[in-house]
């Protein structure tokens, strides 16, 4: 149960407040209030008013303020379809209206709808730690070692890149069983610069260079070949969404489908 509520006026103040024990950043609250802070006494630090929520093109990239909601991503005229597809994977509109990009990255769940595509696009995270200036690092690094408050996300959107984001779940609104995103160029029919990320096969969404390497420099593989090649590279565990064997098969099929359904992002 949340016992204290703070509404800081700046990121610096928020970081000070967050330094106290059992504090948490409260953005949309769709994860924090549903699962995390339910039974524990907590100090909620509302970051709603202090994080940017603008979504704009910056050079050959997309800048998304951490306070932007999933629905705002979908409604923005500057967001490429592949990212909108990923945001739409959160099928529940009520949740999309509240859930923020910063909260999604902050929750750092394996089932995140956004993390795989952002990883595949090679996005960077702007974040700030207490007493420090804002810094930027690749999202993959931040996911591996989260720190501070996420301020914004910068996703490169280069011409010629094609990308896809897919997910599978038992019902439309279920937590994802597996998520896959990929981004690559086709150079003379050959896959080049492939980045592939998966969710559902480790504690956090993960970029899989080993899987990407299988297809790099080659023609688009037949779906069946792609599935056979990657199935045993996926590590899964049994749970109520299926057995490990099923998830590996399903993840492999998703990877094959993602490679085949990638579209130009610009």
């Amino acid at each position, binding site marked *: 149960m949340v016992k204290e*509520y703070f*509404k800081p006026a700046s990121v610096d103040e928020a970081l000070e407040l967050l330094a106290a024990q059992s504090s948490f950043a409260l953005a949309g609250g*769709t994860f924090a209030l549903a*699962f995390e802070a339910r039974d524990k006494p907590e100090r909620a630090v509302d970051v709603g008013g202090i994080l940017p929520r603008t979504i704009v093109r910056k050079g050959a990239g997309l800048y998304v303020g951490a306070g932007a909601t999933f629905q705002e991503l979908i409604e923005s005229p500057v967001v490429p379809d592949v990212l909108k597809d990923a945001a739409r994977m959160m*099928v529940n509109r009520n949740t999309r209206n509240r859930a923020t990009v910063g909260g999604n990255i902050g929750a750092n769940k394996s089932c995140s709808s956004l993390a795989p595509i952002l990883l595949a696009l090679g996005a960077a995270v702007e974040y700030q730690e207490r007493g420090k200036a804002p810094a930027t690092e690749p999202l993959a690094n931040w996911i591996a070692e989260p720190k501070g408050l996420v301020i914004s996300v910068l996703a490169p959107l280069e011409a010629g890149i094609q990308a896809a984001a897919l997910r599978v779940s038992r*019902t*439309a*609104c279920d937590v994802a069983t597996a998520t896959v995103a990929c981004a690559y160029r086709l150079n003379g029919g050959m896959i080049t610069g492939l980045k592939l990320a998966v969710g559902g096969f480790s504690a956090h969404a993960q970029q899989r260079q080993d899987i990407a390497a299988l297809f790099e420099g080659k023609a688009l593989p037949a779906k069946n070949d792609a599935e056979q090649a990657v199935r045993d590279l996926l590590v899964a565990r049994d749970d*109520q969404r299926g057995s490990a064997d099923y998830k590996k098969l*399903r993840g492999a099929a998703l990877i094959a489908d993602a490679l085949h359904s990638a579209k130009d992002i610009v």
Partner: protein
Amino acid sequence: MKVSFYLNSRAVSWDCEPGETLRSALRRKGIISVRDGCDGEGSCGLCAVLLNGRLVNSCQILAPQVEGQKIFTVDWYSKDRKLSIVQRSLIDASCVQCGYCTPAVTLALHELLERSPDPDEDEIRDALSGTLCRCTGYEQFYDAAKMASKRLSDPTYQPPVGPEFKPDLRHVGKDREKVDAAALARGEKAYVEDRVDADACHLQLLMSPHAHAWIKRIDVSKALEMPGVVDIVTHENCPDSVYTTAGQGYPEPSPYDQRMFPRKVRHVGDRVAAVLAETPEQARAAIERIAVEYEVLEPVLSIADAKAPGAPIVHHGDVSYVVGEPPAGSSVKGDGRDDPILYQFPLHADPHRNLAASVADGIGDVERGFAEADVVIERTYVGTRVQCTPMEPHVVYAKVDSGRLVIHASTQVPWHLRRIVARAIGISENKVRVIKERVGGGFGAKQDIVLEDVAGYMAWKTGRPVFFRYDRAMEFMTSRTRHGMEITVKLGAKRDGTLTAMEMKVDADTGPYGQHCLTVPMNAVSKSLPLILCDNARFEVKTYYTNLSPAGAYQGYGAPKGSFALQTALAELASELGIDQLALIEKNRVRSGSRIEILRSLGEGRPGAPVTLGECGLGEMIDRGRKAFSWDKPKPESSDPDWKIGRGAVIIQQGSGLPGLDAANAELRLLTDGTLLMLSGGADLGTGLDTVTAKAAAEIMGLDMEDVTVVSGDTDTTPFDKGAYASSGTYFSGNAAVRAAEDLRDKCFRVASEILGEPVADLAIVPRGIVRGKRGEITLAKLAHMATQGEGHGDLIGMGTFKTEHAAFPYGAHFVEAAVNVRTGEVKLKRFHAYQDCGTPINPALAIGQIYGGVMKAIGHSLYEELLFDEKGAPINLGFTDYKIPSIYEVPEDFHVELVPVEDEIGPFGGKSVSEISLNSAAPAISIAIHDAVGAWCRVWPFTPERVLRAMGKL
């Protein structure tokens, strides 16, 4: 802390706790329309509000977060008790069943129309993506949204009139507004949780963490000293009697095997102690201070475990019988420690071998039938545990008033509830009043006395008002699931498809207690075998105790599982014989005039008798489906090689109440202005039963619907009714209302005859409320006035009682077209058509809504839903995040319901039951379609992608 914001356009400034959710603050301040279906997991959307114009869940927002923001709730749209165009359209499209979700749906559609005044289906789906509804099947929401959209530009827009029946009647067979719909759409006080007084105490349970354990020691002394604690009850100080929680007619065909608090816990979630405290938080804190020492026992976690020689014994108390003798060879002497078991009459049980009940019977010579067959197949089908999941969980408010216990209940069975609670507490029935409030969905789960006994007892003992609401996890853990069943079907047939013998063996798992242990599994047989004509048929039903969650009634009772087994087996047989599956059905199905011999051995709780069927609409229904699906032409091809298309068709049936066992009563009063008060015993769960009884009164008394008010399900003010189960509502309670109206009409004729000086035979009632003779006429208002003004006639009251020996079967033929992904095992429902007979549809659009809702639940059970347990017997998917009921996204692409009425000679205006039957088709039809698509038989539901892949040999 102070939170200032705009609520429904007015500035408010409220004192809130920092951690209080917006939902809780709104409810505390009287905005009761924000409901809670998922304990704040964010998955049900019933707590929705508009925040700065966007639909959001108020359970996931802290009140302080809305400082300075604009909030709108449904109350804004209901100002001055008016209805918005969305509310009006939801009512007109028959979308208000239990109504628990209606305020949320209203807001979702308003938000949609605000940004997209002419929405397409994708937009409507998206708008409702976050709102769960367990009643309606979502399909009619599309109609409502489109209707509301049209009314934006043309407020007078009326949709085309839907199918109508009975041209000779004014109301029956025509769509009329559901009598409670407006209040529910406005979000007015209606449910138990809206009746709670400010001084109510809160009850919380300490539940067993073990599936099977003795409570060796329990110490509540520290808990009793905690602030706010009023009282604590455990097995040491609760009433020492056993009873059944099954809300069935007395004497119940279920063992009395449950003590209010058992000495031995028998499932994870079983009752260990109840704490009554001033606040829920205080009750929870006290629970933490109760010390319990358990002696953990090996649990019984499957039917196979329960049957195994030397299996742990779930119930080991003394076994006794009120009537009859124990079955030969059964054990009755207990271990001296466990709670006793009392059977009202023998159910062929042997509890010390975990057998709660059994039955076997048949007709003809089955061995000879199999010997004569050219082909014999034997297959086993497994139906796992599924939860009813009404959006309103179990809830009760009990208090002592004028020396009596008054229970505000969300129940299907007010009178059984009164009887069972009185017994459990040890008081007489005149000391108990049960008031059934609006029920936010029941579906069978609320046929059982799941929490009213303990709440009633604590209110009676302490004199304090007791509020007790299950959270969703408790609902999953300790409400009622459909019995797990393993059904083996053996069929023999000639080469041409003529059946020579049928055998069904049902093994069922009732969980820790035996409520409905005979009747649910028996129903698997009694609602499936009689569809098929075969001279030689046999069945055997055995129900076992296990330490899994309690099973009980669920819409369809045992029929969906029996139907799954038998209909799929018939399709498997057709496949073996190389015959089209519908051709096999056609060859063997019941038809008009058939003599159904098997009913001789399928009496429900009493000896059965063969029935000669009157008219049967199955032929017409099959023909319509055959045509719509171009059954005789090749099935459609998929353009995507990953997806294969398959089709399946099944025939289904149900009953209409329990002939010879149940009864219903109604009373109809003529008020002094000529309007009517219907006092119906019936329990409307959102099904529209009160509308049926109102229609009966309006039709017969020549009045309009608005001239009739229905009060129902109050044990003090309305007459006895068996309750809403076994598809009895329309047939029994509706018929009682018809009889009450006829009785009142006849009384009015007698009085009018004296006043007008004309013979009764010359009188008729004509709209609106006029008794007309050949020479004169008198209004009902005048008649009532004169009758009550000392003219000597007295109050004009009609009484109606209904009981019958007649069995009325509704039938249906349902067709499915599914696409199955050969790489992933995923199943998409492209088409689902339900052709169904409910006799005269009293209110067609409501009947259609019942069918959509029933089918949608069954689709959930067939494809997604399954209560899962860990290796120690603890249920693990205890919320809507993990146990997935269908959302609007799971609705079949082409979802169609068509009524094909065949009037029943006894039913009200020819009506029969409608909703339960709809659950019997999805599992077999989908499994047949999967086979048709990819050649694999799925014999365990739900047909998850993983199970489909395994059936295909890909995993």
